[in-house]
């Protein structure tokens, strides 16, 4: 890595300056950031009037970051994504989740052009989590509640200032761009200390909330050893809705749909849907629900870890929140630990 990451590269600006800088950046970028609605906090395409409403330093917005790079549906043969984007307020669990997507979609044997273009055209401004939610368990899998890599900038909002820690060359360029339109200074030692204190407080909180939950080194063994009765028991309330996969920052399976004139449309798919592995002859290794349910655990904790370097579960806990059958994967892991 370059020395950008070796030293603490913190910049700061007043909230009001940051807000007016964002206004000016609208000319060149689409800007997405979390906004609070009655029911949830989720990413929105920010307009002038939304700038004041952006929520910083909160855990996971409802939509996982992956959907910015793998839209639910897109035509892969007719559209070329080219908009420059800034995505603000992504928690580190989602940032981490991008790494497995990168391994799959930027695989040098078959580079996915749409994905690559979107990655290149996006500035990722991650924001540290200053609070934790019920199902957050990033630390259990070795993911910190603040970014140190993959994102371009790590943002912390303290009192009247926005602090921006540079994590990449792209982030460095963004700061330079920002300096042209706003008054940017270096963060003070004491301010950096305050941020670091917040970081370690949340780290400890997430660890304390998840005492006894098996880590990523153990989950694979647990899943491998689990007997059929476990999969039958935990899948009893599963209705194959696929919400767990849709909401997961690392689930990336898709269908290719054919349109006239040899066009191909990619639509995100889920191994929890019936027929996911069915072949034309009718054979279907995942025809039965408990097998599909089990497949997702094997994929995340056994098979993909044998194949890829990146984590395939980042401990965001969204699948637990999204499940209408109230299935909690962590209960399964605790039971079998």
């Amino acid at each position, binding site marked *: 890595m370059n020395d950008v990451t070796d030293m603490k590269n913190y910049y700061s600006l007043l909230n009001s300056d940051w807000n007016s800088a964002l206004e000016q950046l609208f000319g060149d970028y689409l800007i997405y950031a979390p906004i609070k609605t009655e029911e949830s906090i989720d990413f929105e395409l920010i307009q002038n009037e939304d700038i004041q409403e952006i929520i910083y330093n909160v855990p996971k917005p409802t939509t996982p970051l992956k959907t910015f790079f793998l839209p639910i549906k897109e035509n892969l043969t007719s559209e070329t994504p080219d908009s420059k984007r800034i995505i603000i307020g992504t928690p580190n669990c989602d940032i981490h989740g991008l790494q497995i997507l990168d391994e799959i979609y930027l695989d040098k044997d078959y580079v996915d052009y749409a994905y690559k273009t979107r990655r290149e055209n996006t500035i990722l401004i991650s924001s540290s989590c200053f609070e934790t939610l019920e199902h957050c368990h990033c630390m259990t899998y070795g993911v910190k509640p603040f970014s140190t890599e993959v994102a371009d900038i790590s943002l912390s909002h303290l009192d009247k200032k926005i602090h921006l820690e540079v994590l990449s060359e792209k982030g460095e360029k963004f700061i330079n761009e920002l300096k042209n339109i706003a008054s940017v200074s270096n963060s003070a030692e004491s301010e950096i200390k305050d941020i670091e204190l917040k970081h370690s407080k949340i780290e400890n909180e997430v660890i304390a909330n998840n005492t006894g939950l098996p880590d990523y080194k153990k989950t694979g063994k647990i899943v491998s050893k689990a007997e059929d009765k476990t999969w039958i028991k935990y899948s009893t309330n599963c209705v194959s809705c696929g919400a767990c996969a849709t909401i997961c920052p690392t689930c990336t399976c898709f*269908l290719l749909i054919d349109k006239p004139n040899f066009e191909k449309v990619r639509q995100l798919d889920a191994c929890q849907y019936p027929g*996911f592995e069915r072949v034309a002859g009718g054979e279907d290794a995942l025809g039965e629900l408990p097998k599909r349910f089990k497949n997702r655990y094997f994929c995340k904790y056994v098979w993909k870890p044998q194949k890829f370097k990146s984590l395939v579960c980042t401990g965001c806990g969204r699948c637990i929140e999204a499940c209408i059958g109230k299935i909690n994967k962590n209960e399964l892991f605790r039971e079998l630990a």
Partner: protein
Amino acid sequence: MAETKNIYKPIRAKLLDVIAESPTIKTFIMEPEEDFTFKTGEFIELTVDGIGEAPFTPSSSPLETKKIEVTVMKTGYVTEYLHQMKPGETLGIRGPFGRGYPVERFYDKEVLILGGGCGFAPIRSLLYNLAAISDKLRKVTLCYGSKTPDECIYKPYVDELRNTPKFEVLRTVDEPNESWSESVGVATVLLDQVKVDIKNSVAVCCGPPIMMKFGTMKFLEMGYPENDIYLSMEKNMSCGLGKCGHCMMGKYFVCKEGPVFTYDEIKDQPDIWS
């Protein structure tokens, strides 16, 4: 630029001819708009425009670059449409994908091939390849099984092989008719009739899942080491690129790391025969 090549976009191929091999199997001879090369055992994704895409291992010779053939059994949505297509119409091809047969590892060996039904398609491509390098091989034996004599495909090619030095073809059917003079029973019965020097031999199997399973068991019983048994696996290979996830067989993306595996490589993975 290779980097900006759209990996999802098929090249077009003109359908030159359609050969009815059996009541349910047809061979489609196509001429791609640009030269198309593949290694035997690798597969292509074939698009019926606006209908769908399905994976097929070409049945033609890998030495032929102007034309490509696939032999397809009518089994599902895409193949139903494909079977209605006429010469002159246009298909789409993506690929080639995956890992084919490591033919160079067959040098100085006897190759024992077990095939069933439409599984003869990839095997025919392999046989074309082996025939071209037969000076480097000891012997090639094909054991082929199908349900009925009518469903035995590539009849002229079988006659041709039977007249090719170093090549032998044994056939069996489940339900013979009066004119059938060859073996009767499931494909694996043919393996009992073969005299083979296991130490200097490799085994290849391609066919329906049930035949793959019992064929492999038989090869093991005969004494073949697990890494000398080559299996052409079939899963729901959809993107062909190791991305869409539909063909995962345990830790493998069959489309990228297969479809040809040694038994040794896949024996610990789940659901390999389904």
